[in-house]
């Protein structure tokens, strides 16, 4: 029986987050009234002309630098000609033969280690409008608010060999574009859209099989399901003597299947040619250098640094570095506190993450800023409060602007440092627990935990559990 190897390449359209459109001064905000952001250029009035947005070029270059790609000093906008109601000019302005970003790569984690996925190119183009079909009897409606929003189309090499790898690549790309701040990456709103090219070939074969393109799969989960479905469809087809046809397929998430759209290869001929309204885009060294200055430290490097400098585990470091705000938060706290990075990481991943989740907000707008958290952790470190009390203090920090010290003071949460006070409570507890004392002396040493618990309860958690254990052992042995 033949074993089959899937071959997958991805094309991702990222909406760049400029304030205005790529070729006009219309707004790009999401969710405004239909056609309210459709300026004369967006609706292609006769006589209007495109003028390129510098920010779109800057963001494209920033991406290119972020993946160590070649930045092409000269790139050309061309016209891709076809008729469709969401395409007001009858052509899309896009880069074709000469894209702004050339070859680069992204490293991904697979089940069996790291792998480099090649980026063939990334080019600038304009988005199309939106078609609406609901509530319109035998008619379609055209909303051109989205027409002209800058897109970066990122094309990968066919380097992925499983749906999981494809998803790993997509997630990595998603982290990267958000890190670079070139897009909000919101998949529901269409800021990050993916087309997958899928083919299969017998294991060991060099020649690529015929591929199909799955259009617009807009969640990580569906990408995985759609690709897996398409792989088995192609294998079944070939094994039963059929042939894969080069075509575009649409993924139906309700039925978990892909189905054929109109076979486009025959009918379409896009007649690309350089847009005479837009001269060649020439980027000089000083422009590229100035963009390079704004390049932030990227997730991979940052994770390595976290592991090296802070002694975090690889898993923790990667998890925390993957989100720019979280990583910034971590570093800010570590700078202020004597607590170890590991402790800080545990707090961020534990208490803080839970609190943010509950409130459904990002770490960037956390009600407890890094300074207040750092101060809190210092109080654990210097023995003022116990870890358990710290959680209580943290809950107060979430609800008010008070400092950790204020909360500890006003609520009297300091640890009991006076040993005689603890001894008094220990004695009180032992007086009412003769059974447990008996068990301990018969060899059930674990029972001491129960006794410690009783003491902690009596002191409202303010006794140092280590000290309590010490005193208990002294009394019992």
């Amino acid at each position, binding site marked *: 029986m033949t074993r089959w190897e899937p071959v997958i390449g991805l094309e991702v359209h990222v909406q760049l987050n400029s304030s205005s459109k790529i070729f006009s001064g219309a707004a790009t905000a999401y969710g405004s009234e239909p056609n309210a952001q459709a300026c*004369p250029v967006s*609706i*292609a*009035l*006769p*006589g*209007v*002309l*495109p*003028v*390129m947005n510098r920010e779109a070029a800057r963001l494209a270059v920033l991406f290119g630098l972020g993946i160590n790609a070649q930045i092409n000093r000269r790139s050309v906008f061309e*016209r891709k*000609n076809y*008729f469709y*109601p969401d395409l*007001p*000019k*009858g*052509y899309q302005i896009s880069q074709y033969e000469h894209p702004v970003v050339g070859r680069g790569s992204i490293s991904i984690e697979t089940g069996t280690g790291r792998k480099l996925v090649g980026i063939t190119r990334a080019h600038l183009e304009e988005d199309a409008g939106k078609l609406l079909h609901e509530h319109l009897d035998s008619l*379609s409606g*055209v909303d051109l608010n989205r027409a002209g929003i800058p897109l970066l189309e990122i094309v990968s090499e066919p380097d992925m060999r499983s749906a999981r790898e494809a998803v790993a690549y997509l997630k990595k790309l998603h982290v990267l574009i958000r890190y670079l701040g070139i897009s909000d990456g919101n998949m529901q709103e269409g800021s990050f859209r993916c087309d997958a090219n899928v083919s299969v070939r017998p294991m060991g074969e060099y020649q690529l099989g015929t591929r199909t393109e799955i259009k617009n799969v807009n969640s990580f989960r569906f990408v995985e399901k759609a690709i897996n479905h398409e792989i088995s469809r192609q294998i079944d087809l070939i094994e039963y003597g059929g042939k894969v046809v080069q075509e575009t397929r649409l993924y139906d998430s309700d039925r978990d299947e892909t189905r054929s759209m109109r076979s486009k290869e025959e009918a379409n*001929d896009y*007649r690309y*040619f350089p847009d*005479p*309204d*837009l*001269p060649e885009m020439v980027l000089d060294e000083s422009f590229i250098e100035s963009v390079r200055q704004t390049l932030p430290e990227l997730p991979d490097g940052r994770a390595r640094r976290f592991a090296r400098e802070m002694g975090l585990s690889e898993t923790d470091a990667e998890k925390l570095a993957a989100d720019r705000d979280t990583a910034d938060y971590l570093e800010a706290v570590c700078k202020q506190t004597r607590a170890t990075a590991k402790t800080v990481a545990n707090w961020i991943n534990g208490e803080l993450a839970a609190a943010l989740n509950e409130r459904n907000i990002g770490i960037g707008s956390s009600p407890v800023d890094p300074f207040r958290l750092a101060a809190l952790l210092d109080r654990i470190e210097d023995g003022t409060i116990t870890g358990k009390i710290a959680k209580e203090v943290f809950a107060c920090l979430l609800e008010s602007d008070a400092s950790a010290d204020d909360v500890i003071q006003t609520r009297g949460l300091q640890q009991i440092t006076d040993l005689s006070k603890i001894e008094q409570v220990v004695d009180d507890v032992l007086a009412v627990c003769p059974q447990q004392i008996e068990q301990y002396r018969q060899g059930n040493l674990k029972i001491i935990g129960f006794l410690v618990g009783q003491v902690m309860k009596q002191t409202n958690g303010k006794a140092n559990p280590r000290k309590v254990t010490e005193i208990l052992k002294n009394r019992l042995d």
Partner: protein
Amino acid sequence: MHERSLHEHAEALRKGEYTCTELTHHFLDRIRKHSDLNALITLTEELALEQAIRADERLARNEAEPLTGIPLVHKDLFCTRGVLTTCGSRILENFVSPYDATVVRQLNQAGMVTLGKTNMDEFAMGSSNENSYFGPVANPWDRKRVPGGSSGGSAAVVAARLAPVATGTDTGGSIRQPAAFCGLTGIKPSYGRISRFGMIAFASSLDQGGVLANTAHDAAAVLASMSGFDERDSTSLSNTVPDYLAILQKPLRGMKAGLPKEFFSAGVDPDIQKAIEEAVKVLEHLGVRVVEINLPNCNASIPCYYVLAPAEASSNLARFDGVRYGYRTTNYTDLSDMYETTRTEGFGAEVKRRIMIGTYVLSSGYFDAYYVKAQKLRRLIAQDYLQAFEQCDIIVGPTTPTTAFHIGEKSDDPVKMYLNDIFTSSVNLAGLPGLSVPAGFDRNGLPIGLQIIGKYLDESSLLNVGHQFQQHTDWHAHIPRDLT
């Protein structure tokens, strides 16, 4: 009154000899009286009188600029806010532009008065004005003949003295050829000199706005107000615009004019050949030295032009789809049918023919053989001019191979029609400025045009030579017999 030049009007308005409102009424009456020329698609009487009142106020306050109060007409492919802008096409028969073209805005600000929008070959495709949805325009010199095209309506208006000046556009000769056919001075400046924003595109890398007037002096004044940088056009140039009027008086002594051998070939009408030779003698008399030059690749300018212009047009005209503005057919079954029927009914024969050629030369398998080949030829043609201008300051020759032909004479044969652009289209391919000035009449009393081509951005020399030539000839002062 209408026989006066733009300058004489400006002078009279300032002196208070007559008001701008009176002048405007005079021209509006003349336009109505000579409506048989079919030179205008829209008369903007209300707008004109409103602008005239404002101009009179400015004149009264002594705040007038040189062009304040001067009436003009715009070619109907310049978008004019609140005014029908048809491009000579059925597909825009109902299009009232919501904005002004940059050129229109500039001339409005200068205080000019818009009398109307002129007839033209549909989407500026043509050399005879027979390709207009609104019917052909008659040549004021002989109403059985064409005024040239595509700015034929603009040319007829100025030749018939229905307005002192008109805007036009020139993609392969569309200002210079009608100027020649109607006995006018017409200038197409360098590509990038005048904003294309709001000028409905035919072939974006060739289109350039310009002026049709009675004299180089008048043309210089209006050109100055139309030129300059526009941030809304990515191909607009930021170079400063020289003072064209100041340069007109410069003596020509020491200037060198190149005569391209290729422009004096056997295909040129003998009357034109003779008139151009006479004109060259006048220039020599004015101190211009004449040298023979070669433009070897300009022979290929027509085929090159008829690849590039239709290719760009096929894409530029894709936006006319009956969805957002303009004509939509009433007779369709589905989306695809709506597109096809709208465009089939909305465009005329020549426009459709050029869309077909353009689509063909860009299509898969033919792109390199035609489109890329033509782009390479374009570079060779541009280089021919660069080399020629190492030996001379201006290039002179005939504007057209024939004078105005009869309406219907060439309309069945597109190829014959295309050859009208033989001396003009290479100038657009190279992006250079070109001027046509009247240089005589043929055996039938039809005007002949002398073409003067300049270095990139050197409109000044063209206007200077044109003006000096007109100080020593009176061809520009002739007026068609029944229109005086």
